[in-house]
C-alpha cells in the first residue's frame, strides 16, 4: 500500500518555532502565528497612521473602517460605557480575525483551532466580564441570576438554570470558535487528501476525478473566508454582550 493516508489532524500538531530559542522557551508554531497576527495588526496601524490624511488612503481607510466597526459594535451593544472596553474588544477581535485569516494560508498554523487557545480567551472574557459585574454592582450582581417578574416558587428551579447558563458561556464561546476552525481545516485536508488518494489509486482517471474535491476545496475556501470573519465577529459581539450584562444586569 503505497497510497498516502489522510492525516487530517497533523496540521494541528504543536511544535516549537524559532529554532533553538523556541525549543528553550517553548515558543510554539502557534505562537509564531500569534506573533505574526500581532505584527500584522501593528503594521497595518503603522501604515494606516502614516499619512493621517483628511481624505484617507487605502491603508488609513482600512484602519478607520476596523476602528469604527468595533467601536460601533461596542457602543451599540454595551452602550456609551462600552468605550472603556473598546481597546480590549478591538484587541480580541483583531487578534482572532487575523488568527483565522492567517490559518487559511497553506502551511500557516491556525491557532484559533486550538481549544486551549480559544478556551483561554473565553475564560478571560468570562472572568473579566464577571469581574466588571461585581466591580460595577458589588454583591448585587448576584441578582443577575434571579430573573425578575417570576413567581417565587419557580426560583429554586430558575436560579440554578441561570447559573448553569452563565457558567456555560465560556464553553460555548470557546467551542464555537475552536470547532468552526477545526472543522474547516479538517474538511480542507480531507478533500485534499482525497485528491492524492485518487491520483495514487486510479492514475490518469484519478487525476481527472480529483477535480471534484479540488472544486469542493475552492468553494470551501470561500466559505472558510466567511467563517473566519464571522467567527471573529461572533466572538467579539458575544464579548460585548457579556460586558453589557455585567454593566447593565439585564
Amino acid at each position, binding site marked *: 500500500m503505497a497510497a498516502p*493516508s489522510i492525516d487530517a*489532524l497533523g496540521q494541528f500538531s504543536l511544535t516549537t518555532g524559532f529554532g533553538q530559542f523556541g525549543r528553550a522557551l517553548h515558543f*510554539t508554531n502557534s*505562537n509564531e502565528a500569534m506573533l505574526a497576527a500581532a505584527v500584522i495588526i501593528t503594521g497595518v*496601524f503603522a501604515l494606516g497612521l502614516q499619512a*493621517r490624511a483628511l481624505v484617507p488612503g487605502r491603508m488609513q481607510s482600512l484602519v478607520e473602517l476596523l476602528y469604527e466597526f468595533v467601536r460601533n459594535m461596542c457602543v451599540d451593544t454595551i452602550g456609551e460605557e462600552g468605550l472603556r472596553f473598546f481597546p480590549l474588544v478591538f*484587541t480580541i477581535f483583531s487578534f482572532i480575525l487575523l488568527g483565522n485569516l492567517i490559518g487559511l494560508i497553506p502551511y500557516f498554523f491556525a491557532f484559533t483551532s486550538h481549544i486551549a487557545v480559544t478556551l483561554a480567551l473565553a475564560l478571560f472574557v468570562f472572568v473579566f466580564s464577571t469581574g466588571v459585574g461585581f466591580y460595577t454592582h458589588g454583591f448585587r450582581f448576584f441578582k443577575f441570576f434571579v430573573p425578575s417578574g417570576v413567581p417565587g416558587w419557580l426560583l429554586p428551579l430558575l436560579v440554578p438554570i441561570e447559573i448553569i447558563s452563565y457558567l456555560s458561556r465560556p464553553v460555548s464561546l470557546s467551542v464555537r470558535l475552536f470547532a468552526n476552525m477545526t472543522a474547516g481545516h479538517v474538511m480542507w485536508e480531507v478533500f485534499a487528501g482525497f485528491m492524492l488518494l485518487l491520483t495514487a489509486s486510479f492514475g490518469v482517471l484519478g487525476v481527472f476525478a480529483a477535480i471534484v474535491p479540488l472544486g469542493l476545496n475552492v468553494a470551501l475556501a470561500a466559505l472558510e473566508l466567511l467563517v473566519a470573519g464571522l467567527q471573529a465577529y461572533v466572538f467579539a459581539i458575544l464579548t460585548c454582550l457579556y460586558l453589557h450584562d455585567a454593566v447593565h444586569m439585564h
Partner: protein
Amino acid sequence: MRRLSTATLLALAPSAAFADTMPQMNFHNPLTLDQVGWMAVILVVLYLLLSCWGLPQVGKVLDNRAAVIAADLAAARQAKKEADAAAAALNATIVQARAVAQAEVAKAVNGAKAKAAAEAAALAAALEVKLDAAEAQIATARAAAVAAIRPVAADVASTILLKLTGIQPAEDQLAPRLDAALAARKVA
C-alpha cells in the same frame, strides 16, 4: 450548524484520518498550555500597543476630520448668511434706485409739462393781444365806414329828392329821417 458538522465529520470520516487523537486535546503535551502563556504575553503587548498608541491615534484622526468637517460646514453656513445679506442689500439698493429713478422721471415729466403749459399760456396771451388789436382795428375801420355812410346817404337822399321833386330838402328835415333809417338798418 457548524458545530454539528464537526461532529458528523468526526463520526463519518474514515478512521484512518484520525490515526492519532486530536493534537488539540493532547494536554500531555506541555506545548498545548505553553502556547497559552506566550499568547498572554503577545496579547498584553498587542493590547498595550493598541490602547496606548494605535487606537487613540486613529481616534484623533477621526475627531480631527469631524472637527474640520464641522468647521467647514460652519464656514459655509456663515458664507451663505453673508451672501444672503449681500443679496438682500443688493435688492434694497435696486428698489431704492428704482424709486429715485422714478421720482426723477416724474420730475422731468412734470417740468416738461409745466414748461409746455407756460409756453402755451404765453402763446395764448400773445395771440389774445394780437386778437384784441385786430378787433380794435376792425372796430375803428367799422366806425370809420359807418361814419362815412351818413354823408353819402344824406347826399344820395337829397339828390334823389331833388331829381324827383325838384325841391332841395332842408337839412333839419332830412337829418331825423336819415338817422331813423340808418338805425332801422342797424348801421349806426
